[in-house]
């Protein structure tokens, strides 16, 4: 099961936070140059579209390489992504059963990094959006509702996963 994200993670043992920081380090100068050229709103819209397309495509391609049902593909990716990302957060599991998984993240080092950098929207695109792209792999078998995130400035991220009966 592990290994499904090896190509994306490059070095599966390394910290996802360190990797994301490296990625931000090269993206931010280009992002800021784009804003100087196009204005903030247009530049941010371009960046958003490019990074959303990238993230959706990334997890869809990973899913294509996994055998089994959409629910199984989701679980395979979520297991690895959840493990590498959970090292950087503090969380409480509120509910965990066949129908639902409710998690409140109460501290997030990704959010701390991107908020200190003044680029929480970039952080949301690089990290927070992945959760929904991974859910999309489940093709309806898994739903996610998350009304707030620390990256956006809320005190916690409220992950509410719902599973359709098998």
């Amino acid at each position, binding site marked *: 099961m592990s290994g499904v994200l090896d190509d994306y993670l490059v*070095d599966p043992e390394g910290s996802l936070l360190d990797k994301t920081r490296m990625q931000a380090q090269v993206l931010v100068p280009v992002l800021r140059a*784009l804003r100087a050229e196009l204005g903030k709103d247009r530049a941010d819209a371009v960046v958003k579209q490019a990074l959303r397309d990238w993230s959706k495509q990334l997890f869809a391609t990973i899913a294509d390489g996994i055998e089994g049902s959409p629910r199984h593909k989701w679980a395979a990716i979520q297991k690895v992504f959840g493990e590498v990302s959970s090292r950087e957060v503090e969380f409480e599991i509120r509910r965990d059963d066949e129908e639902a998984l409710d998690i409140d993240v109460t501290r997030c080092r990704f959010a701390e990094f991107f908020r200190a950098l003044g680029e929480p929207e970039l952080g949301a695109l690089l990290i927070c959006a992945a959760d929904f792209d991974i859910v999309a792999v489940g093709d309806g078998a898994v739903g996610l509702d998350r009304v707030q995130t620390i990256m956006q400035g809320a005190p916690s991220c409220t992950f509410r996963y719902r599973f359709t009966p098998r």
Partner: protein
Amino acid sequence: MTDEIAISHLQRRKIEGRVFIPFIDACREKFGEGPTRELVAAAICSLATADGARWADMFGADIDGLRRVAELWAGGGGMEVEVIDQAVDHLDFNVTRCRYAEFYKELGLADLGSQIHCSRDHAMVEGFNDGLELTRSQTIMAGASCCDFRFRRKA
């Protein structure tokens, strides 16, 4: 939380590239080749100059230090290097295998590799020691059989 994790330079460039390459590719589709090239060149130059200054601090801002930089690039199997000649005022080496180029070529984006990766080296030298310069007539990324790095103390 650490600034430097124990990974090779090749891994670092791959990690950056996982997002940066598709992002720049999307910009090319949106804005066209020329404007994207300008945008990327300025950003890459400033990053590379900063890398050069950091490596000069780590290894010393001289030819010996540049040799250490080349060894850093080669770490983790990133490049196979044949040193032709080294003295106090110059360092000549050929890169005979380049996994950075292989990474871009596997993605079908060797032209982008030249812009994002190879073009860094001249700006890096400026940040490293602006009394030194690099000439390089060919690269593996651009299709040659080797990259001919020739570092010289400026006249």
